[in-house]
């Protein structure tokens, strides 16, 4: 394994660089996935049949809380990578833990919202609007859920093995994934919630 010491740990070997490059390619595919889900939502947004419409359903309070929580977690995962590059394992782990706790808080609010929607008579089978809405939100939420499990597994590895080429690479790739989820949420916040409440 040839190690390039001029690069940060996560880019230190060719395998590491390829893994990061590959992950960017995967995120390109994720953009396509979410684009199709947004497309379906935009086409079906007014087809709410006898169920509630977006304006009836959406409440800005929890949505704003979710947005600020996710933006903050995106900030803290950025700080985790920054600490990692300084070789500060403990600080890096603290920022990771904060990120994951914020992720769990986001998910908690989202689950609460889903209960609220179903309570208001907007289950996934109610109308084309609710089907497309809950599929879009649910796909994002499933990504966050997966991210929580993935991040926790990486945190345990960092604790056990310290910061080396493998764990730094995994942590960095996880940070890319987490920022990406934040970007997707920004579009959900803007073009699903705010547009629905306009």
């Amino acid at each position: 394994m040839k190690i390039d010491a001029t690069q940060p740990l996560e880019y230190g070997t060719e395998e590491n660089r390829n893994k990061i490059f590959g992950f960017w390619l995967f995120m390109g595919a994720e953009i396509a996935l979410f684009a199709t889900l947004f497309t379906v939502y935009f086409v079906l947004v007014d087809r709410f049949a006898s169920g509630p419409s977006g304006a009836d359903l959406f409440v800005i309070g929890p949505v704003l809380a979710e947005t600020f929580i996710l933006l903050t977690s995106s900030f803290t995962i950025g700080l985790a990578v920054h600490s990692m590059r300084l070789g500060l394992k403990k600080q890096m782990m603290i920022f990771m833990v904060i990120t994951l706790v914020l992720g769990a808080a986001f998910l908690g609010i989202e689950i609460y919202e889903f209960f609220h929607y179903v309570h208001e008579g907007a289950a996934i089978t109610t109308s084309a609007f609710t089907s497309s809405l809950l599929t879009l939100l649910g796909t994002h939420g499933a990504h966050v859920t997966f991210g929580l499990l993935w991040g926790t597994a990486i945190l345990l590895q960092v604790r056990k093995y310290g910061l080396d080429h493998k764990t730094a690479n995994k942590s960095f790739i996880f940070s890319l994934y987490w920022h990406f989820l934040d970007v997707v949420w920004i579009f959900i916040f803007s073009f699903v919630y705010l547009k629905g409440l306009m």
Partner: protein
Amino acid sequence: MLKQLFPVKHVVGYVASLVLTLIALVVLMDLPAAVEIGILAVTAILQASLQLVMFMHIGESSEKKSLYINIAFAIFMALVTIFGTLFIFVWGWYA
């Protein structure tokens, strides 16, 4: 130590993302729909670019040219999918 753990670039990026979120909230007031959509489009695109450049460091890797092409292609596909479909199904070209 604090300065070391919270670099200016990240803090600025974070504060900017919060400000952009608050700006986007003006669409809840009664403005013309076209203006509101314009504001949302601008704030959302700025937010996404902020994440990509400030936090994801897209420009730092040695393959950055390929990354830019890949992401640009993905965004192109996304826009064609979304606006192509709206063009046909919603804006009435087909009808």
